[in-house]
């Protein structure tokens, strides 16, 4: 597993095999999937999530199968299951031939973590594992030598709906659009000159330490990665990007008055990620050992968050300006969002790195509003108090984006006049 993970030097983007990849936690994953379903409705939302899973799992599976010399269908299906669990997505057992097949899933990241997070308070009526369905469909295509974008998969039982396990039915003939690939060659074309920011002497060693520490991490006996108080996945960046940008495009066509709401929710996915994953890392014993105890000052939190973002494969987030209590300017030579957008859709009409925008605002909030020395529990109630308890004390703007053709992406977070920072 660890030999498949590579970082793009100087840009802090990550590949898993041939595929652009990032780490994200279950809080983010569940929030983003729910956002897509809320925007498009469950049927269209889960369809998009399935298509994105299938599209981006395919090059990963075929690339790794080729690299590892797996040639028979059985070898390739076994390899797919190993990759899936190694990435922290749970366990899949796929039985398939050209006529279709079935899949049994246990501890699937989406369904299992949904049931852990919401199962006692919400009754779910639809399955949660569209990504797993897409992955299983792609695995059967690659194993059986079928055309890509041809195998369908439907989740028929899901632990999120209180079933004892997850099951899927595979059925051929589910054609999807063949979209331009976004793999390593395409990403390479989109990246420009990299640069450093302030406090690199602090940020870069932390980044390296986090990468060294996470390199051997893989799924446990359940096929899950449980670390820093969250379930972590090594995930395909194309999945996140396709579902986010296609959802925006669909809403622009069907309900343009709602685009702003969707964009706000995509930004909020950045709050969710930073609060849970970045916060969990900052509070962990591993952080205390590698970096030291948290001082409660804002600057070390901002520095630490830049390092965490880089280690997770989000891009070289740099501090261009930081005035505690007033202003944070983050610049990046590119991000996992912008390289995807430029590659697939061409130049953006306006800056649209929603995750980057939301994450930077959340970093400002964590740096100033969290009493780190009290070792807080990062609960949903605390999240609600920090991010939903009235107007936020910060506003975020993105004046520049490499998705628009600018030489860098820039996000500016400023304190709202009169707000408590």
């Amino acid at each position, binding site marked *: 597993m660890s030999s498949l993970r590579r970082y793009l030097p100087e840009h802090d983007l990550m590949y898993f095999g041939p595929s652009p990849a990032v780490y994200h936690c279950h809080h983010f994953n569940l929030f983003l999937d729910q956002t897509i379903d809320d925007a498009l409705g469950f049927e269209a939302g889960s369809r998009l999530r399935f298509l994105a899973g299938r599209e981006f799992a395919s090059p990963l599976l075929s690339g790794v199968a080729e690299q590892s010399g797996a040639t028979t269908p059985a070898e390739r299906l076994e390899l797919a299951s190993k990759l899936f669990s190694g990435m922290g997505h749970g366990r899949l057992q796929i039985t398939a031939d050209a006529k279709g097949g079935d899949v049994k899933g246990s501890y699937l990241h989406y369904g299992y973590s949904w049931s852990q997070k919401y199962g006692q308070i919400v009754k779910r009526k639809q399955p949660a594992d569209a990504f797993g369905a897409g992955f299983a469909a792609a695995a059967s295509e690659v194993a059986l030598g079928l055309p890509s974008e041809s195998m369908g998969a439907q989740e028929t039982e899901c632990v999120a709906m209180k079933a004892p396990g997850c099951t899927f039915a595979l059925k051929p003939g589910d054609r999807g659009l063949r979209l331009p690939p976004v793999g390593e060659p395409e990403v390479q074309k989109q990246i420009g000159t990299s640069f450093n920011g302030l406090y690199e002497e602090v940020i870069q060693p932390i980044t390296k330490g986090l990468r060294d520490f996470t390199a051997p991490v893989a799924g446990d006996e359940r096929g899950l990665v449980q670390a820093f108080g969250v379930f972590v996945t090594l995930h395909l960046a194309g999945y996140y990007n396709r579902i986010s940008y296609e959802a925006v495009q669909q809403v622009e066509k069907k309900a343009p008055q709602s685009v702003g709401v969707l964009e706000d929710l995509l930004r909020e996915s950045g709050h969710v990620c930073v609060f849970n994953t970045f916060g969990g890392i900052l509070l962990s014993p591993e952080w205390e050992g*590698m970096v*030291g105890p948290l001082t409660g000052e804002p600057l070390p939190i901002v520095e630490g968050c830049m390092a965490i973002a880089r280690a997770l494969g989000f891009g070289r987030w740099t501090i261009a300006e930081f005035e505690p209590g007033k202003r944070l300017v983050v610049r990046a030579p590119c991000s996992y969002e912008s390289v995807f957008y430029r590659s697939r859709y061409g130049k953006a009409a306006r800056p649209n790195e929603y995750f980057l925008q939301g994450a930077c605002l959340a970093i400002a909030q964590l740096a100033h509003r969290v009493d780190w020395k009290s070792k807080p529990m990062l*609960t949903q109630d605390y999240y609600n108090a920090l991010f939903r308890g009235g107007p936020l004390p910060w506003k975020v703007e993105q004046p520049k984006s490499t998705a628009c053709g600018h030489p860098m992406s820039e996000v500016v977070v400023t304190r709202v006049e009169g707000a408590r920072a």
Partner: protein
Amino acid sequence: MPEAIPPEGVVLEGERARIELENGCFERLNWRCTLHAPPAEPAAIVPAMVSRGYTELKRVPQVLEVFHPDGHRVAVIPSTGRIQIRVALSVPEEERGQAALEVAEEVAAAVAG
């Protein structure tokens, strides 16, 4: 079904150690351990636990970790003395606090020699 974790957290007191549920641990797996008589050198916990059947897991020098054949782990930060007990996944959630306290007591006993 285990009871919901109260907002103030969960603290359990033992004879020689105190444990406190750590952040984000919705499955009650991770517990901060405070020994009533901590060793002068936190790293000494590792050989003491190895002598009691634990195995050292070497990842990075700044974070020391030992694990028990049953799956429990103890992480030690030598620079600060922080100890975190990570209960095995196989232990039912409602029993994890007690399991963590037993490991904490074992750490204390190991350190005391």
